[in-house]
């Protein structure tokens, strides 16, 4: 088998030189490494350049609303816990419009892998600042440069108690594939913040900049068991870590929810309404 089988044979609408291509390859490689049958995987996306991923892969797909990626993914996973659910979208989608769903799905801790294409810009809508844009980043809307502080996804996820917190860079495809595979393998909510250049709109966080400003956790012999250490690293390091920053094993939502024990909800047969007779008996 090969990673090819996960790729839809359709033209893409991404710009030449964009990091999205490498992320697509990495995702396919990760699925291949795990040997997942395409029909058991559901890729859930929102709207944006990153979100177009679902159309370029050969797996099940739910391309929903901008910002609502995780909400749809959570519904899918609860309805059929046997599906491998991967949510994927842009930094605007997940950290901007969809911020509330990120907060609360980290709390839920369903077994969902979230891959955020973090190009620090709104690509599809032509280059406005995203929540991760650097202060001072100038756009046609942020004409004086970004004034707000950037959202730092890894610190946020740690503070919310996320059980798998990782970062990768589209420029290191094999490494990215490995991180994605580990995230999918993790039982519970897993965040992969995927740094990638947007040559069309982001002239600051370029490929070269990303190479320059990241470092490998593995090369430092990082042990992802320490939350405090992870927070400390994020506070003290100027550069951006790549790899699995934190990982903690625990039973995900679906294991803890009494109704979800047994067959997936979606596969339980429709009952005869007559079976509800005990309930109508309550009406007297």
């Amino acid at each position, binding site marked *: 088998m090969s990673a090819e089988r996960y790729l*839809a044979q*359709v033209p893409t609408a991404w710009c030449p030189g964009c990091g999205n291509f490498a992320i697509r390859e990495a995702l396919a490689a990760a699925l291949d490494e795990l040997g997942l*049958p*395409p*029909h*058991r995987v*559901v890729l*859930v996306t929102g*709207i944006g350049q990153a979100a*177009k991923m*679902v*159309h370029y892969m*050969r*797996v*099940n*797909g*739910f*391309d*929903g*609303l901008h910002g*609502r990626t995780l*909400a*749809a*993914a*959570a*519904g*899918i*996973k*609860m*309805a*059929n816990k*046997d*599906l491998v659910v991967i949510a994927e979208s842009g930094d605007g989608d997940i950290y901007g419009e969809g911020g*509330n*769903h990120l*907060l*609360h799905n980290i709390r839920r801790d369903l077994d969902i892998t979230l891959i955020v294409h973090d190009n620090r810009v709104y690509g599809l809508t032509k280059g406005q600042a995203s929540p991760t844009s650097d202060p001072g980043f100038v756009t046609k809307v942020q004409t004086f440069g970004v004034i707000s502080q950037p959202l730092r996804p890894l610190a946020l996820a740690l503070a919310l108690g996320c059980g798998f917190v990782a970062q990768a860079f589209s420029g290191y495809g094999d490494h990215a594939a490995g991180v994605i595979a580990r995230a999918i393998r993790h039982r519970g909510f897993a965040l992969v913040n995927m740094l990638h250049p947007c040559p069309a709109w982001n002239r600051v966080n370029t490929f070269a900049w990303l190479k320059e400003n990241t470092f490998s956790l593995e090369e430092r012999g990082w042990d992802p068991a320490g939350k405090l250490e992870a927070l400390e690293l994020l506070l003290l390091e100027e550069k951006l870590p790549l790899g699995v920053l934190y990982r903690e094993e625990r039973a995900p939502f679906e294991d803890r*929810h*009494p*109704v*979800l024990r047994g067959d997936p*909800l*979606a*596969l*339980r047969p*429709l*009952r*005869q*309404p*007559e079976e*509800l*007779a005990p*309930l*109508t008996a309550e*009406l*007297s």
Partner: protein
Amino acid sequence: MELVVRIAGAAGQGVQTLGELLSRALFRHGLFVHTEMSYHSRIRGGENAYTIRVSDSPVLATKEKAHVLLALNDEMLARYGSLLVDGGAVICDASLSPSARAVRVPARELAARELKLPIAAGMVLLGALARFLGMEMGVLRDLVRERFGDRAELNLRALELGAERAPAGPWGLPRGDPEGRHFLNGAQGVGLGALAAGCRFLASYPMTPGTAVMVYLAAKSLEHGVVVEQAEDEIAAINMALGASYAGARAMVTTSGGGFALMVEGLSLSGMIETPVVIHIGQRPAPATGLPTRTAQEDLLFAVHAGHGEFPRYICAPRDPRDAFYLTVKAFQLAEKYQVPAIVLTDQYLIDSHFTVPEIDLSRAEVSDFRLSPEELARIPEYRRFAITPSGVSPRAIPGVSEKLVLVDSDEHDEHGRITEDLGIRGRMVEKRLRKMRGLEAEVSPPLVYPEGGLRGKTVLLGWGSSFGALKEAVDLLNGAGGDYALLHFSEVWPLRTAELARAFAEAREVIAVEGNATGQFARLVSQVTGLRASRTVGKYDGRPFTPEWIAEEVSR
């Protein structure tokens, strides 16, 4: 025989518990019972009133004036004392001094001294009330046992203490047989309908009065295999429900107008990805937060037109809790059959009121599976989720059950669900989606005419949803006073059936729309679809439910 009993107190004094016990006991006496809850948006204090109407023939509406008032405090005595019929009686604590005829029982003292449970004062008064009404105490005692379990003993004693101290009133309540009847409120009707229809997933954010349906399903969750998930917000709720539905679980959300306002983008998504979802909206007075615990029919035109773009939907507005059961089942069925969003439009009055209705017949709830089975899927060489068909309905597969992949997309898409900017496909997809409206039109049942028969020459009252009972009785009142009135009443409002409207407008002397809003929303909808215009709209928008008297008076102005 007809009697209206009202229990009124502050939030936290147990008004609801007392009202539920009493009304169910009266139901078990074989009487027709209708209840209505009026309460403030607070947890303690304020005004709670539980109005119970009892009769030996069917009653489907509430009344303003009561024969008996159980007042739990001074304020409620003042507030509701003036809403007694002439010669009405008050039951209250001995420390209160009502001006009306009264049964005063030292309930607080008894509860505190004899029972060491001050909150039981209400139960003491309930005992007195039951005796005053001439009820069988055994029925009430059984109910107290069912409800309080371990804590029943003290409450039974409280009942007893009250009953001992009250005289029998002038009402010899007749006895009947509750067999063949059910006693339930709208929340139970909707919730039970959802369960019967195979609902497996509810995601919602608490909001009065929609929460009641969530609470009902949560109570049945484990036994009936339905996940009830409290979403972080209403947007999450509808998107979670759509995700669950895509994956194959029948899914619903429950909310009120304000929460629905946040679901509108998701509604449009449902239309685009042709993924069923059932939305229960319990209406309440708005705009914005409005009056959270009151009732209204203000969200009809909003529900019909909500969402950007054009797509079919189904909207029903049940008349009573039994109707809510059947229509909720139907909403699920049509949502699944046509792959559209379906809205069940109720209101606080319907949700919180208990009605005595003919037994719900579970076997009448038609439930069928419209999804492709793995076997059917296996026979299809190339699966197209959005295949363009004459009916507009495409075969629906769910992901994971076969090797066929299922792709849905909020962008315009081709038959495979893949994003497209081909404007030719766009046009055909718009037409395909809208063609489903035709099928839906044929599913809608005709409106109800009361009294049965023609409308020729009559003044026709036009109504929809939970106003049914009050309108029906208003027609009786008006006709009893020499009028020539009839009722044309809709419980399925979108798509709108037009044949009966055309006939009614052609035959009637005059058509008067009666609605729980200020702008005549249903009348406007009728005009939009048919061009037919009601001559007048009678609107109620003060947050209170309709009463037959109010309607009769307003209509004959």
